[in-house]
């Protein structure tokens, strides 16, 4: 699944605010403009009606209508004229000011005393359109100012109001179970943050307590198991040394002995796995792997030789891993032993490293397991029932906890394990 891109809450809020402001402003601007138009039309209409009435009145009285400004009366020939009204906006040159002014013209046929007249009225609407332009030009700066205010405000929010929240987040980031984490609390009057802080502190405490209990339990169990196991083993060894017993009970004694050994190893290995999971190996440092690998190869060369398996190492001196030295030993040891165990006789184990990868491969005719099962606990190949099946699980766990990527491939009849350094 593709992961969603995340962005800061405040940025999201600011963007949403801006979005809503754009909508709100568009609506209010439209309303304002419509209202202005309506007002202009109404005023012009009123003025036209007023003039119209006066002119009709004058005409009825038979008086002169020349003194009417911005009105023209043309007597029409007899005929049947429709009472239509035609409005038109037009520019008319103002000689006094030397500019064009916007006017509304109304042409209308009227009947007074049975005579038809063409009445042409005009009204300067320049001021009205200026008003409309003013409305629009006021809205834009207000919108800009408001947007700036919102951006500034969200910066202020993140700097000041959200400071306790960011502090709590930082504390959460710092927390590692089992590292004696001390929570530095922050003062806040925001009740949500105060609750969050309280809940988080409670959680940390519970996690810490659970961890300590589990650790104690594991340690005690492992410790207390070892002594009885040692006693059983020693007593069994006494029996093994007793020829009379062995004559009659060799099989039983062997079974007891084998199982107690298995149990003892299991207990030790599970304890180690728990320790790794609990992040108890914390002496991380950058280790150049070449000498470490060479050392292991040297130690195991003889073991491999017993199976007529050759070990060939082609190493890059720059390959380094940031890890606890003890864990690195385990990784190499387990992978190499695994390779020796599953290699066919008279084959070669190849170990190579580059600047950021480590690869080990061994020849084997069969791919024994599904790759996904390989790193599971207690999974073991068919040919090796006496192994615990924890070696690769440990390697995987160590890799996971140290930012290393381990992959398994079966290519050209070879089992390959590749460790790639990530960002650790």
């Amino acid at each position: 699944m593709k992961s969603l891109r995340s962005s800061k809450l405040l940025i999201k809020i600011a963007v949403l605010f801006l979005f809503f402001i754009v909508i709100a402003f568009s609506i209010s601007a439209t309303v304002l403009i419509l209202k202005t138009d309506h007002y202009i039309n109404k005023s012009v209409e009123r003025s036209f009606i007023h003039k119209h009435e006066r002119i009709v009145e004058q005409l009825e009285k038979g008086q002169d209508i020349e003194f009417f400004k911005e009105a023209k009366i043309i007597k029409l020939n007899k005929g049947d004229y429709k009472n239509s009204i035609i409005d038109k906006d037009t520019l008319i040159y103002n000689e006094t000011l030397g500019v064009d002014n916007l006017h509304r013209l109304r042409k209308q046929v009227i009947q007074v005393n049975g005579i038809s007249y063409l009445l042409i009225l005009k009204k300067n609407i320049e001021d009205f359109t200026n008003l409309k332009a003013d409305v629009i030009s006021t809205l834009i700066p207000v919108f800009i100012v408001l947007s700036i205010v919102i951006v500034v405000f969200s910066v202020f929010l993140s700097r000041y109001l959200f400071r306790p929240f960011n502090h709590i987040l930082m504390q959460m980031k710092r927390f590692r179970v089992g590292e004696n984490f001390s929570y530095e609390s922050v003062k806040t009057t925001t009740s949500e943050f105060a609750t969050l802080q309280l809940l988080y502190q409670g959680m940390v405490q519970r996690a810490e307590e659970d961890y300590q209990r589990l650790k104690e339990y594991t340690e005690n169990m492992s410790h207390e198991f070892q002594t009885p196991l040692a006693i059983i083993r020693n007593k069994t060894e006494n029996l093994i040394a007793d020829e009379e017993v062995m004559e009659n009970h060799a099989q039983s004694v062997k079974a007891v002995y084998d199982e107690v050994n298995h149990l003892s190893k299991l207990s030790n290995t599970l304890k180690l796995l728990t320790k790794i999971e609990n992040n108890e190996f914390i002496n991380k440092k950058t280790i150049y792997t070449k000498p470490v690998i060479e050392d292991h190869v040297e130690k195991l060369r003889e073991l491999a030789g017993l199976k007529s398996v050759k070990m060939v190492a082609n190493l890059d001196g720059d390959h380094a891993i940031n890890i606890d030295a003890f864990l690195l030993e385990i990784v190499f040891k387990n992978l190499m032993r695994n390779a020796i165990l599953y290699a066919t006789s008279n084959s070669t184990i190849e170990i190579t490293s580059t600047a950021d990868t480590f690869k080990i491969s061994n020849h084997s005719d069969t791919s024994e397991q599904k790759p996904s099962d390989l790193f599971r606990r207690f999974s073991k190949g068919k040919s090796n029932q006496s192994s615990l099946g924890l070696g690769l699980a440990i390697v995987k766990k160590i890799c996971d906890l140290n930012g290393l990527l381990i992959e398994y491939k079966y290519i050209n009849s070879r089992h390959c394990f590749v460790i790639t350094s990530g960002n650790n």
Partner: protein
Amino acid sequence: MKLLIVEDNLLLAEDMQTFLQESGFIVEHTINLTEACEKAFVYDYEVIILDLGLPDGNGLELLSELKKRRINAGVLIVTAKDSIDDKVKGLEFGADDYVTKPFHKAELLARVKSIIRRRNFDGNNFVEVNDLKADLNTSQILVNDQPLDLTKKEYDLLLYFMYNKNRILTKESIAEHLWGDDIDQVDSFDFIYNHVKNVRKKIAKVDGMNSIRSVYGMGYKLFEL
């Protein structure tokens, strides 16, 4: 040669005591730190076998006291805590070696003997069984005065047999001795079979006696004739 076992588990301590006595040592036993200090300060012991988790304190305290008083006894740390911390600390405090519980008794014996040999700086440092003669100073094993051409592991294996002559060494015990197996173990038994076969061949090549025998399919024994 006198040994002191400091171990609070009585069953385990008795078992170790009997075993080491059978191997020709004089063995004393204490169950706590206080008693261990009293004994160690008064008597001379060749090797002190020291459990770290004691009821009245950590065995490391005895180590530092021994150092302070310049008491020259070998110390073998025995601990159930297989953390490297304890091992490293123990060795830093001046212990000679360590074994972790549960250990094979053959391993314990080999370690004790090895400490004794290592501390015996002057003079010849030989272990002899039948016609086999191990020279610990040169890490060589001779048969009829002819050196065997052994690999490092083969030398360790044969010496382990010689330290534990007339005892069955189980395959598990050999595997642990050779490869220090604490982690998930590979099926080392075929390897041990091959190792033993190779050692026998090399002994036969110089006309040595074949004194290593397989026993009950459980392990091997070096018979002293």
